């Protein structure tokens, strides 16, 4: 890492820089704490004068996500960002995006809920992000950054995955990752895709006008009133999700090789738990950490393998009342103990607190 390239930035600012550098075509958003710096930074950087990227402040999150839907329907690389209550407002749009198979990026910088809740960090939207977050059978691709550097890296990853599968992708961050400054090396500037490139790349589906050659028209819709035909669409979506589960699972394992106990944690929680692992090892406890990077598709297999190998217990450590723990339990499938430890309302645990919980709920039980 060259010192000159190292910047000190907030996670939210990095999202804005990374979007411009990726060659994102448009951002539509609405202010909400703790993610407003994303749009503020974009407005400050004025990418419409450099790359031609559109930045628009909408009248609501409902409008933002539907602007994303419209621009994405033309094959452009578009994104929005919000925080928990705003994502709830977007959930209708997320369902339509998934139903119409439109690629796009949504960033959720989570805060505590339910309702208006708090503006402090939380991971209370795991269910919302991973189990649909809107009506109907669908999945978002969900990436969970645990550092400001990953806020940069995952913008490109999320767009690439979204286009690979023609599916909306979400970066599920939280107030801590969004608000904190940390070292980051920004990605190099890429060119935006030209209209001609997109017209060719997405010619089978994008509604960007039939063009001079009057290609067969494209209709972007999630509607199909014939049950037989709708079931076929559903099956196609499910096949796509299955392919994601087979090909796109990402995770990080720390000290799991000889681990007798494993903590499963993502995002900012995983950072804290990495220190717990060090504390535990210093006490002679063989503790490992499995950090899911993709929350959907969930790293089921590595957890299954750890359980199969004889890990004595898993602790799912989340800034919520116990959401991901359900997926951990499904993966472990009764082979051994699975418990949850969490804090809520914007409270964060310390590494030592997590170690105490591990002893109480798993080791000494």
């Amino acid at each position, binding site marked *: 890492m060259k010192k000159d390239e190292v910047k000190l930035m907030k996670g939210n600012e990095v999202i804005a820089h990374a979007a411009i550098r990726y060659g994102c075509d448009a951002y539509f958003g609405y202010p909400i*704490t703790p993610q407003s710096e994303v749009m503020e930074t974009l407005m400050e950087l004025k990418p419409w004068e450099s790359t031609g990227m559109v930045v628009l402040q909408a009248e609501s999150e409902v409008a933002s996500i539907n602007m994303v839907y419209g621009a994405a329907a033309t094959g452009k690389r578009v994104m929005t960002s919000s925080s928990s209550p705003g994502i709830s407002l977007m959930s209708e749009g997320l369902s339509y995006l998934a139903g119409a198979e439109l690629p796009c990026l949504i960033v959720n910088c989570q805060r505590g809920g339910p309702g208006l809740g708090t503006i402090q960090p939380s991971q209370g939207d795991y269910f919302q992000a991973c189990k649909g977050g809107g009506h109907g059978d669908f999945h978002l691709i969900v990436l969970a950054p645990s550092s400001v550097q990953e806020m940069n890296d995952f913008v490109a990853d999320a767009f690439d995955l979204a286009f690979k599968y023609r599916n909306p992708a979400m970066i599920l961050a939280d107030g801590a990752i969004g608000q*904190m400054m940390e070292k980051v090396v920004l990605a190099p500037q890429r060119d935006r895709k030209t209209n001609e490139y997109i017209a060719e790349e997405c010619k089978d589906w994008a509604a960007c006008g039939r063009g001079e050659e009057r290609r067969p028209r494209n209709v972007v819709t999630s509607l199909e009133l014939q049950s037989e035909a709708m079931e076929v669409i559903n099956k196609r979506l499910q096949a796509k999700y299955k392919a994601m589960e087979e090909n796109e699972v990402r995770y990080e394992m720390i000290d799991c090789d000889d681990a007798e106990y494993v903590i499963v944690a993502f995002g900012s929680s995983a950072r804290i738990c990495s220190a717990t692992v060090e504390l535990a090892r210093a006490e002679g406890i063989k503790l490992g950490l499995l950090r899911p990077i993709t929350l959907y598709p969930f790293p089921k297999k590595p957890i299954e393998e750890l359980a199969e190998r004889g890990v004595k217990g898993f602790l799912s450590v989340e800034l919520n009342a116990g959401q991901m723990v359900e997926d951990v339990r499904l993966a472990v499938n009764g082979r051994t103990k699975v418990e949850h430890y969490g804090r809520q309302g914007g409270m*964060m645990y310390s*590494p030592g607190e997590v170690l105490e919980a591990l002893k109480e709920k798993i080791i000494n039980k």
Partner: protein
Amino acid sequence: MLNNEEDKTMKETLIIAGFGGQGVLSMGKILAYSGVMQDYEVTWMPSYGPEMRGGTANVTVVISDRKISSPIAHQYDTAIILNQQSMDKFEQMIRPGGTLIYDTNGITRHPVRDDISVYTIDATVECVKLGNAKLFNTLVLGGYLKVCPVVTLENVFEGLKRSLPERAWKMLPQNEEAIRHGAEIIRKVR
């Protein structure tokens, strides 16, 4: 600052707390950038949202030679306290053996703990003398660095430059001077 003699690791968890407008957040940013210049890992975590509107602002800076687990702390190695509300809140959150630095201006209830080191820096008064209120945070920073030399002065000056937009670089010399001067005016209480 925690210097573990056995494995030679360094980690400093610092909170700077005061009023909005005192340069609390930018003081943290200068320090964090200085850490970057010294090849350390750093995190800078501000208080944010409506609590800032009430007039108080704080920032937690962690500097370490290893990966930083949490940008949010429950206990601090050092607290720089610049108003009474922050004194009431954060004095109790310093680890035993830690350090408290405060500006006596506006403080009605002084720190009482005897298991920590306590320093004062009369930066507000000094600013009046110098006739430049904008040097407040660099004066305090200089005092802090005298007590807790987590980064070299050379890297602090580089961090100061990197944390400021280019249009403000003409202010660099007087801020560098303020950092040096801050080291001279900090006083140990106990």
